């Protein structure tokens, strides 16, 4: 039996500074057979290991069809992520995964899609947006909504601009604090909800970011008549093992690492928003 905790060596192919606190590591397993066998779905995550420091769960932002490289966009906030931020191309780390359940992309086909993110937590949904935009014909109207605190937290501007050009696609961006030449809305992301275009009978909403923001989105969508089965959220908690053993990620009866991180709202509505869980 193989040890489920054992990482595999991966090489940093490129490091990209996305914003003052966000950076992307582009990784490849050094053992080609490991790399070839590796499969993941958008919304899943890997455990990245920094030698001598420890592991951290990071969602995978690349597209499953880009077999060459695995992208992880990371916010430098703790001991491990700060250390990862110092890495350069050629450096080695450990990677194990993928873990958890990703976005309901098969369920979403042929339907209108609303993807909402807030704060700096955009990485898990960028994978889903990329996925949808590359298979645009399989989905109905697509709404991409993102709220950030400061306009300079907004990364991947060109991608959003590109997505905006796609047919039947709406991109709505808001920053609480704007900056000169900021082309999008200044104010709260909720101000933009009225501009969303979807048929509530066939919409699916996917969101990630601060739970307070997701609560607002859920309330808004419910008021529009969207059912709990059609609301999907990516949740975050302390994670150390990623396989349902260490107990840190428990959310009521759920283990975020294996039952999530993406949940249907129906399955977590009893606890969602209760402080302390």
């Amino acid at each position, binding site marked *: 039996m193989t040890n489920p905790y054992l990482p595999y060596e991966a090489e940093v192919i490129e490091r990209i500074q996305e914003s003052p606190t966000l950076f992307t590591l582009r990784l490849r397993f050094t053992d080609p057979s490991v790399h070839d066998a590796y499969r993941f779905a958008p919304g899943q995550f890997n455990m990245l290991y920094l030698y001598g420091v420890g592991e951290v769960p990071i969602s995978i932002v690349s597209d499953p069809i880009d077999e060459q490289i695995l992208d992880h966009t990371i*916010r430098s906030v703790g001991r491990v992520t700060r250390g990862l931020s110092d890495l350069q191309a050629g450096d080695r780390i450990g990677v194990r995964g993928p873990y958890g359940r990703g976005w309901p992309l098969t369920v979403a086909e042929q339907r209108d899609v609303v993807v909402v993110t807030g704060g700096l937590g955009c990485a898990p949904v960028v994978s889903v947006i990329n996925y949808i935009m590359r298979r645009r014909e399989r989905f109905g109207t697509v709404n991409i909504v993102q709220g950030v605190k400061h306009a300079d937290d907004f990364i991947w501007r060109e991608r959003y601009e590109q997505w905006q050009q796609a047919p039947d696609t709406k991109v709505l961006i808001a920053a609480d604090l704007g900056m000169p030449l900021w082309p999008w809305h200044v104010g709260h992301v909720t101000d933009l909800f009225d501009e969303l275009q979807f048929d509530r009978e066939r919409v699916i909403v996917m969101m990630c970011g601060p739970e307070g923001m997701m609560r607002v989105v859920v309330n808004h969508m419910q008021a529009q008549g969207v059912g709990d089965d059609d609301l999907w959220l990516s949740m975050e908690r302390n994670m150390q*093992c990623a396989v349902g053993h260490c107990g840190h990620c428990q959310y009521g009866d759920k283990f975020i690492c294996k039952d999530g991180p993406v949940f249907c709202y129906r399955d977590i509505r009893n606890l969602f928003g209760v402080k302390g869980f």
Partner: protein
Amino acid sequence: MTDAVQYLERDGLQDLIQGLQKAGYHCVGPQIRDGAIVYDSISHVDQLPRGYSDHQSPGQYRLQQDDNPRCFAWANGPQAIKPYVFAAEETLWRSLRDTAGELQFTEHVVDVGPLAIIGVRACDLAALYLQDKHFLHAEPRDPGYLARRQQLLLVAVNCTHPAATCFCASTGDGPRATYGYDIVLSELDAGYLIEGRSQQGLTLLAGLPTRPATQGQLEQGDEESHQAVAHQTRRLPGHNLKQALFANLNHARWEEVAKRCLSCGNCTAVCPTCFCHAEQDRPALDGTSSDHVRQWDSCFTQGHSYIHGFTLRANTAQRYRQWLTHKLGSWHDQYGRSGCVGCGRCISWCPVGIDLTEEAAAICGDGEP
């Protein structure tokens, strides 16, 4: 009990220890260390806590010796058998770094020999069943736990002297051992009723100087079990408190218990079903390797709910609520039953004597058992 029940003179237990040793088992059994009964290596029956009884109450544990001839006339000590399967600390893997910065990961193989634990109580067998569910019954299985578990032989002892803190009768887990053991003993004044369950247990039993138990001895054993039930006064206010607990997440009692609770985590450290553990890296001083180690953790610590620079359960009320709603509530969905086996350890070993049966009753109401 059936015809299969045999009687073993008190000294015959030494033959059992020797039989186990001959069969290749390292034996551990209850012994007194620092004023408490814990498991430790044993080779002779004289090492057992003969003549000792324990007095337990909220926040209290005390041993007392008298002329009682029995070796198991006490309830349970702070340490369950958990450390023998789910080690308090364990290396999971090691990373080696060469001068070029390349990494190599090697798994740490837990290599333990056969282990026999003598004196396992019913509550701890139930806890073992739950830990098996957690670590082994879903993929991926935990390799360290599995390696230890496969080497285990369990000699259970039916409880005759429950402590005031015990409530296994109310959780349905004791005081008699009904599953999960290889051999079970019922202690009488002059010897033991002894019964094998597994093939290994039956084989060992065949080599012991036993004789069929008499009707009187069997009746005595049954009577003591009934007494052990009758002596238990604590109980949980229901078998499944999930609904009641989650319907009362804003109950004033959470804040009230938080005023007494020190958030020390003792309750989780002695609980035989708690499975939380933290992982950390321990680099060697020479910089060429680092061990990835796990250690028991507690939901009462600051770090347990840490995420992105803040602690999700910042206060004690939230932590106590997490512990109780998980133990008595969410376990039902996760593992098909409550996470409490009624051992009472968390009551005795809480420095301020918080009693979960009392807290549960205050929050859920004093329902039917």
